């Protein structure tokens, strides 16, 4: 095998490597999106900007606290845990249980991180605060700002419900959309932009 053939093989391997890694990211997430169970996470978006990856809405969720005795959880801040999910009476996701090990049973769960462990005082009981892996929703720059406006107004109106539609499968979670009262946020923004013109 001479130098030319060696370089040829090396080049092909490089190309495959560079295609494989992003492809794997895609396949993994497509799988979750198509075959995962849908959960609705109630949220309150804000709006920063990441220079390399476009503009997104920063999402923070309501169902992030799990009230429990925290003795066993001391010092575990930043660790990865498995959050078992169920739905509340209104159909929104809530934390059923948190475990350090991957659950073996047929329960819907996802991997998350412990944000902090709260010791508990007179004002509030002890709990664990979770941060979910889907805290961003990418939107076109012009729309991201409008989306925040739409949300703020909906808040002032009082009743509207904003939530993220997330697909769960095998511990992985992929965010599908952000909806206000059942309408995807992009459509609301489009309507608003159409109205103002």
């Amino acid at each position, binding site marked *: 095998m001479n130098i030319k053939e060696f*370089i040829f093989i*090396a*080049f092909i*391997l*490089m*190309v495959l*490597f*560079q*295609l494989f*890694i*992003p492809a794997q*990211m*895609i396949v993994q*997430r497509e799988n979750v999106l198509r075959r995962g169970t849908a959960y609705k996470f109630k949220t309150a978006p804000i709006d920063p900007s990441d*220079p*390399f*990856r*476009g*503009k*997104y809405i920063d999402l923070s969720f309501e169902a992030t606290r799990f009230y429990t005795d925290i003795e066993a959880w001391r010092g575990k801040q*930043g660790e990865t845990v498995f959050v078992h999910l169920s739905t509340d009476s209104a159909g929104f996701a809530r934390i059923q249980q948190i475990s350090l090990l991957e659950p073996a049973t047929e329960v819907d769960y996802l991997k998350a991180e412990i944000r902090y462990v709260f010791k508990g005082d007179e004002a509030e009981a002890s709990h664990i605060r979770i941060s979910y*892996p*889907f*805290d*961003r*929703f*990418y*939107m*076109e*720059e012009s*729309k991201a700002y409008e989306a925040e406006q739409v949300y703020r107004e909906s808040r002032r109106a009082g009743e509207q419900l904003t939530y993220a539609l997330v697909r769960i499968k095998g511990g992985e979670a*992929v*965010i599908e959309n952000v909806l206000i009262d059942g309408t995807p946020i*992009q459509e609301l923004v489009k309507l608003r932009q159409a109205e103002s013109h």
Partner: protein
Amino acid sequence: MRKALAKALIELVNEQVLSPEKADEIRAYYQAKNERAPNRLMIVFGILGALLVGLGVILIFAHNWDDLSRSTKTILAFVPLLMGQLACGYSLWKQRENISWREGSSTFLIFAIGANISLISQIYHISGSMSGFILTWALLSLPLVYVLRSSMSSIFYLIGISWYAWEIGYWHHSSQIPFLYPLLLLLVLPHYYLLYKKSASSNFTSFYHWLVALSLITVLGTVATDHEEWIFVAYMSLFGILFIIGSTRYFKEYRSLNNGPAILGSTGTILLLIFMSFHGIWRELADNRAAILPESLFAPEFIIAALLSFGAITLFFILHRRQPVWEPAPLSWISILFIPIFFTGLSNPLTATVLINVLLLLLGLYHIRQGTQKHHLGRLNFGLLIISTLIICRFFDTNISFVLRGFLFVALGVSFFAANYIMLKKKSSSAKKLS
């Protein structure tokens, strides 16, 4: 340079130092040489063009078109990547020796890889951290360094892994030690070594030396977490190693501005010494002494400091034996001497402070003496600069009256002028003696 040469040739012919025929031969030689050399401007433009196109692609895609379906967006994400790979393949096949093609196509591919990953992150709303993104980008670009023998790729890779280390070590909210960094650096070392072997004196290689040294210096600080005190020793030893390497014969052949390790090593050592000449620093170290010694032995800072110091001392003594290759300059002695001084300082801050000041004073005097003896204006001023900085720092340290400080400043300024004036006079009088 060509114009200067042409002028010189004409002058030499006029003064009848050179025969007209010889002058023509010289002109013909340089003409042929220029035609053979690859047009550097083309290479630069090739790289710049690829860079701009690559950046443009990223910016356009960052705009994130909401209206397209997920599959369309995904396909679009791979277009620049495939184009880049095709371009690289073409460079390898048809333009193997053409540097601009190789460098241009690999630069484009690197940016295409970045665009690809960032687009996919957007399409699937992947949070991920900046460090993860940079790491993936760097690793996917690494093969280009070897498969296409691309120097630009190795520069990007170096910057990439340094950025990754900075993200983890300094900028992440829970800063940690980037343990992956040494391994990542190791991956590009074969290329570095080949560069040293094949084109040791090229400008690019000297630039590379600068980059590697800068990367090491900036990343070392990430080790400082709980036992930061040992970082001083670590840095002093790193600067010592860099300076020692920079004063070996191989590096001395570079023009002084190209000698990255030597410049960074010497500047770093002196700055650190000046920083450590303040009594306050040593007092704080001594106050923490109870926390320093017993438990530190397994702290990462201590281990790294120990390794680097061991390296510096070993390098010093091994090269000391090979005298013609390398002479121990006072600066390298100083970085080694710092180690015992540091230990002294832990229990005796005042002694350490005095010792450091004495070292700096001696260093300054040494350079002044070298400068006067060898009629080297730069050296002389360098020595004066060290001593002046030392004195100025002590002004802030101690409680001398303002009037006295004023006098001393004036004295400093006058001595600067006087020393330079005397030196120049000596130079011109000795030049007159020669002619």
